[in-house]
């Protein structure tokens, strides 16, 4: 059952359209990520769901309750929507202790003192904050603050929890641990979460489903695997993962495959929707799909080594193909000069 339904949402700042008809559903126990570059409208969408931005068209439903309807002029204010929101900055109230920060939502719901105490204590324990109740936010580390912010949003059992870039304020090392911890928590507590992120690897790791936003519209949505390995558009392919891009001309399209020709190369790949014979085309291949080959062959390229970078667990080699540059991983350093690269047909998407 859908806990949250957004239908055809439009939102404008002045004359500047931010959301141009976005629809999404969030089912119970599901984690959906809103992914996109900055300015794509993902945070605005989250804030509109929370009731902090006012759209001018469309509907938002939480469960079966309509909280926003542009046509019927319904707009339930933020405090009436009963959602949990974790801010990017955490927005912990500096004048309240950790306990009071978490208890505030319960007190606003007129819950008796003893029950407030019990529920806050439980929440603190669940998020391994047990001993920190009496501290003030500025006495906590970044990771602890993040967990307090989560506890504050979860303690009154909102049907949906909204997370705005929940990991971006943590340093890189902590972020990976927190990501695993957050995913585990969401699954364990069977939360329904809508999560904004600009980091594709975070979205892949955390979510059941990803919505990729581009310029106020949903570019593509699907499971992380679909988004990564079956992008329908050049934008999606380019946004997810590390890629090589080859510009050329599509000379032939046949049975789902396309031939891309350019300066010094002629490659077969899978034809995507937009590929048309005789038109300009772009080939896209993930770095990890290009293989070093020992000689010429089918769908292989002759390239010159420009430089190599050592990444720790592998090498990244940079090759020149005319004006174009290609990158590929390898497990050992290469000698300068000519090399061969193999581009598998199912790894190259032609748009």
């Amino acid at each position, binding site marked *: 059952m859908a806990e949250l339904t957004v239908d055809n949402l439009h939102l*404008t700042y002045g004359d500047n359209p931010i959301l141009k008809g976005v629809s999404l559903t969030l089912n119970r126990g599901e984690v959906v990520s809103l992914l996109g570059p900055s300015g794509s409208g993902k945070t605005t969408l989250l804030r509109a769901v*929370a*009731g*902090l931005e*006012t759209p*001018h068209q469309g509907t938002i439903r939480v469960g079966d309750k309509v909280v926003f309807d*542009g046509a019927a*002029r*319904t*707009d*339930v*204010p*933020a*405090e*009436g*929507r*009963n*959602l*949990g*929101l974790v*801010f990017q*900055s955490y*927005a*912990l*109230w*500096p*004048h309240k202790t950790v306990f009071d920060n978490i208890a*505030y*939502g319960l007190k*606003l*719901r007129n819950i008796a003192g003893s029950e407030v105490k019990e529920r806050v204590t439980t929440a603190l324990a669940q998020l391994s904050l047990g001993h920190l109740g009496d501290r003030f936010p500025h006495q906590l580390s970044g990771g602890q603050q993040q967990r307090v912010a989560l506890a*504050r*949003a979860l303690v*009154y059992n909102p049907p949906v929890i*909204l997370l705005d870039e929940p990991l971006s304020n943590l340093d890189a090392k902590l972020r990976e641990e927190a990501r695993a911890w957050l995913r585990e928590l969401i699954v364990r507590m069977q939360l329904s979460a809508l999560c904004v992120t600009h980091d594709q690897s975070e979205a892949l790791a955390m979510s059941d489903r990803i919505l990729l936003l581009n310029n106020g519209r949903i570019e593509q949505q699907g499971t992380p695997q679909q988004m990564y390995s079956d992008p329908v558009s050049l934008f999606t392919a380019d946004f997810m993962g590390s890629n090589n891009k080859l510009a050329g001309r599509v000379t032939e399209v046949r049975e789902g495959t396309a031939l891309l020709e350019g300066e010094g190369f002629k490659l077969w790949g899978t034809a995507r929707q937009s590929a048309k014979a005789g038109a300009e085309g772009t080939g896209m291949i993930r770095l990890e799909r290009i293989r070093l080959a020992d000689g010429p062959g089918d769908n292989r390229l002759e390239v010159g080594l420009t430089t190599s970078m050592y990444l720790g667990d592998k090498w990244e080699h940079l090759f020149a193909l005319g004006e174009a540059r290609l990158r590929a991983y390898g497990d050992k350093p290469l000698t300068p000069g000519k090399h061969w690269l193999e581009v598998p047909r199912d790894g190259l998407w032609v748009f």
Partner: protein
Amino acid sequence: MTALTRTSGFTSVPRGLTILVTAAAVLAPLLLILYQSFLSAPFFDAKKTIGIGAYQFIFADPDFWQASLNSVVIATCMVIIALPLGALLAFVMERTDLPAKRWIEPLILVPSFVSPMVLAFGFVVAAGPVGFYTVWATELFGGAPWGIYSLTSIGVIAGLLHVPNVYVYASAALKSLGSDVEEAARVAGASPFRVAATVSLPLIMPALLFAAVLVFFLGFELFGLPLVLGDPEGHLVLSTYLYKLTNKLGVPSYHLMAAVAICIVAVTFPLVLLQRFLLQNARKYATIKGKAGRMRELPLGQWKWVAAALIATWLFVGVIVPLTGIALRAFVTNWGYGAKLAEVLTLEHFQSVFDEPILVRAIWNTVLIGTVGGAIAVACYCAIGFATHRRNDGWSRFVDYLVLVPRAIPGLLAGLAFLWVFLFFPPLQPLRTTIFSMWLAYTVVWLAYGMRLISSSLMQVSTELEEAARTVGANRGQVSRQITLPLIRHGLIASWLLVFMIFEREYSTGVYLLAPGTEVIGAQLVSLWQGGAIDVVAALSFVNVVLVGIGLAIALRFGVKLRD
């Protein structure tokens, strides 16, 4: 594509009430002045008729034109003096390694916290024809090369006293300007003062332009200085012309006063709007060039002594001379050529102040209006602040402009207008002789100042803290009371302290509201000065300076920023 109205929380009763009361308190006096200016007699006179006779009368009066000209001359003089000095002072304080800056900064701001009436009186007793410094100079050198009663002297003194107004805005602008541009000029071979003149100051031009308009505008509001210093040679400015009108015809000439008041507002209101425009403009510039944070102090080298001498001279003339004058005069029986300081020392002036019930009440009322009144005023400003906080609707913009209105009405006029308001609305008449009438006028006159204090506190509360409370289920009222208010409490206490000092300092607003029951030191000083009671004026001025000094000491002790 119309914006939706929210189903709840759009208009609340407290908010509407706050805006309504504010509008009434601000607009009623102004409208009453306007109405009165088109009558032929006081509004309570049964024989009044509507017409433009009052304007015809004052426009035919050569004194009015002379006073207008004098106002322009003084205001221009003030800009010419205050602008370069204030800008230079800001540069030296913000950008160079001048020693003891931490101690100089509060001293610079002193003139803006001491009542101009007191300072003017201080100049008379210190540097007047038989003032302390004049006498000493004559005894030492055989003559004192200054006179303080000419029109240009008034302009120069007013200019020196308004240096802090320029300093505040110039230094704020310099703070937001990266120091790399100055270092580049130094490396290219420019001396510190050349850097100031050719690089830093041109870059903060928008802020300086704003400050120039502000000082010019304050020149039109000037009352205490020209009243005290202009009297001996009979120089009138618009405000003192208005004040003297009371006696001109022998009968209450409210319609004439109202006409002059409208003429003054006709000059000041456009200036206030211009200031608003320029300030927004200056802010825009500041954000474009805002690479603050990396501040390096410019080494002054031997220029240090030039800068220090300049500041010391200014402080001596603008602060030390008048204040020591007051302090000495309050403790001597008489003063003149041949008087020996040790022989004339006395405490009897204070004795006579404390023997006079009216003056004791004035001191008590002044303390009361600063502490309790100041707290209630801050509460009112806070309520208005919350009525517009994070709301971007028509009402907020209305309040924005509303708070500008009292800014354009000098205290003297505002006091007069409030007197009329209390006489005009019968239900208010019983309050006329209570300290409430004084408090209301003070609160409205300083509305714009108070709102600036409150909104700078509110601006420091991150939006997300309030949004977080909304999402966990708090409505607007609960957010204001339980989140925002506790977060700005330190700012409110600081505002209270600043409003206390401003209320202690205020004098012109009370001039017309002064009555048995509403005595305050500031207005009482004006009245006593007119009566020529120098000894009592000196003692009372001293008390006033002490009260402001206490506020200042507390503010400095707790690190309250004296400016925003």
